[in-house]
């Protein structure tokens, strides 16, 4: 009982500080399954509102797919609810192994190890394969979970400017004397939706004897002709040494992640990665669901093809309406507003129009880079996108930002 009033007051003050800074995060309660059409309680206590979800990572629309739900039910019936064990004690079922084999085949790697989440995969992998004789060279915009993994590892760390290959090469030269070098990047960057130049990175890594690490959480299942990921899109399938990815986004969206790559690196994770060794195994019901997702994706590219069409339609619509977008061709389509308050206001107005899309601002993105990050899904139909486009246009008109350049928007609303 040492949580006295003085301590409480200290935390209250910190929380007030977060509110004052305008970066206090609030949950919105969804009363339906995850899908294009959802029912939302927001603010807390208000009556339910139907909305079109434009910000889920449900890229392939598989989160509530009947076949996936059915497979999960079967997994529940035949393999039970929980395993009450980490993998290496008594938490590995036949289906865990089957999933590792299937992911390996899907990603075109040598071997795969499951983790409770991709956050855990990223947190554990570097420490498991590197020592203080080595260097990690990461893109400056990699995901927060990678930064945590880097912090937990004793190897030296350096960064290169976002997607800047000249800078990366300089860093590879600067650190040429290190025993092992790992270049670290996201495949598709989650905030901007741009794609890493994996072809050039593979070439540089070959030139300087470095390993290449790619977090493909926002790509696995739909980027590339058959949806295998950024490496497929960039023509370097089979050439990535370490891929991490999540089952919590396109691949059914429940939870779980993995490290996939060179078999010796995967083996090192099995022996040493702490989140693998010390956190519970993925529940059988989830494993069964992901297995079904992969079957669906092996069988047909229909869903990623539809996603690609939807994405092109959405980007074209927003561009014609006169919004400033981040360039790219992935289903992550950031509508740039630059000013944090403006992004919040527009998000609220969109919600009034039945469109659920969240504003992102500092510290999630850099200062002066506030945006609404829209994410397209194969679960969207054209009528969803049309409705969302007319809502965006209406709200854009209200704030008089349509057809305006970045500079003009900043002049009107500030940074």
């Amino acid at each position: 009982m040492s949580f006295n009033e003085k301590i409480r007051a200290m935390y209250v003050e910190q929380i007030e500080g977060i509110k004052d800074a305008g970066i206090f995060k609030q949950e919105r309660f969804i009363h339906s399954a995850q899908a294009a059409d959802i029912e939302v309680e927001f603010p807390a206590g208000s009556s339910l509102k139907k909305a079109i979800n434009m910000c889920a990572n449900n890229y392939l629309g598989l989160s509530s797919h009947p076949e996936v739900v059915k497979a999960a039910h079967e997994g529940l019936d035949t393999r039970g609810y929980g395993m009450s064990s980490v993998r290496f004690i008594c938490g590995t079922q036949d289906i865990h192994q089957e999933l590792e084999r299937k992911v390996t085949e899907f990603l075109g790697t040598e071997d795969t190890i499951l983790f409770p989440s991709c956050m855990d995969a990223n947190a554990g992998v570097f420490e498991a394969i590197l020592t203080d004789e080595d260097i990690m060279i990461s893109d400056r915009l990699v995901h927060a979970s990678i930064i945590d993994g880097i912090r937990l590892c004793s190897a030296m760390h350096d960064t290169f400017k976002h997607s800047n290959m000249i800078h990366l090469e300089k860093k590879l030269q600067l650190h040429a004397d290190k025993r092992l070098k790992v270049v670290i990047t996201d495949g598709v960057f989650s905030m901007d939706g741009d794609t890493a130049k994996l072809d050039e990175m593979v070439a540089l890594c070959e030139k300087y004897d470095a390993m290449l690490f790619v977090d493909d959480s926002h790509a696995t299942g739909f980027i590339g002709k058959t949806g295998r990921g950024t490496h497929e899109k960039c023509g370097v399938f089979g050439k990535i040494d370490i891929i991490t990815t999540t089952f919590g986004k396109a691949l059914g969206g429940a939870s779980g992640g993995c490290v996939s790559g060179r078999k010796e690196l995967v083996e090192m994770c099995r022996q040493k990665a702490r989140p693998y060794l010390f956190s519970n195994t993925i529940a059988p019901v989830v494993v069964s669901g992901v297995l079904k997702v992969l079957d669906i994706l092996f069988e047909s590219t229909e869903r990623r093809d539809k996603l690609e069409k939807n994405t092109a339609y959405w980007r074209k619509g927003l561009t014609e309406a006169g919004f400033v977008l981040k360039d790219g061709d992935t289903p992550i389509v950031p509508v740039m507003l630059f000013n944090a308050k403006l992004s919040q206001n527009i998000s609220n107005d969109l919600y009034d129009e039945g469109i659920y899309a969240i504003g992102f601002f500092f510290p999630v993105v850099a200062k002066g880079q506030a945006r609404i990050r829209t994410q397209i899904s194969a679960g969207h139909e054209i009528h969803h996108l049309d409705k969302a486009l007319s809502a965006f246009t209406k709200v854009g008109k209200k704030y008089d930002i349509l057809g305006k350049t970045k500079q003009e928007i900043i002049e009107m609303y500030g940074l």
Partner: protein
Amino acid sequence: MEEIRDVVLEYVIEEYLEDEDEEINYETPLISGGIVDSFSMVSLKRFLEAQYKISIPDEKASPEAFDTVNSITALVREFIG
């Protein structure tokens, strides 16, 4: 010795400023001012070591010693001897 100062300044501008409009000088606080995160000090240290063929012990490479171009220059001088 002017030269070291300018080499360091130029490196910091090249390496850490993303926005061409930002301006820094010899006394701009780099780490405490949020321009260089303490993470990225590593590359600065390695650059200095390679450039001037010196070895800066880790305990000398404190965030304080790396906070301005002038203080970095002083540190380098100490090891050039």
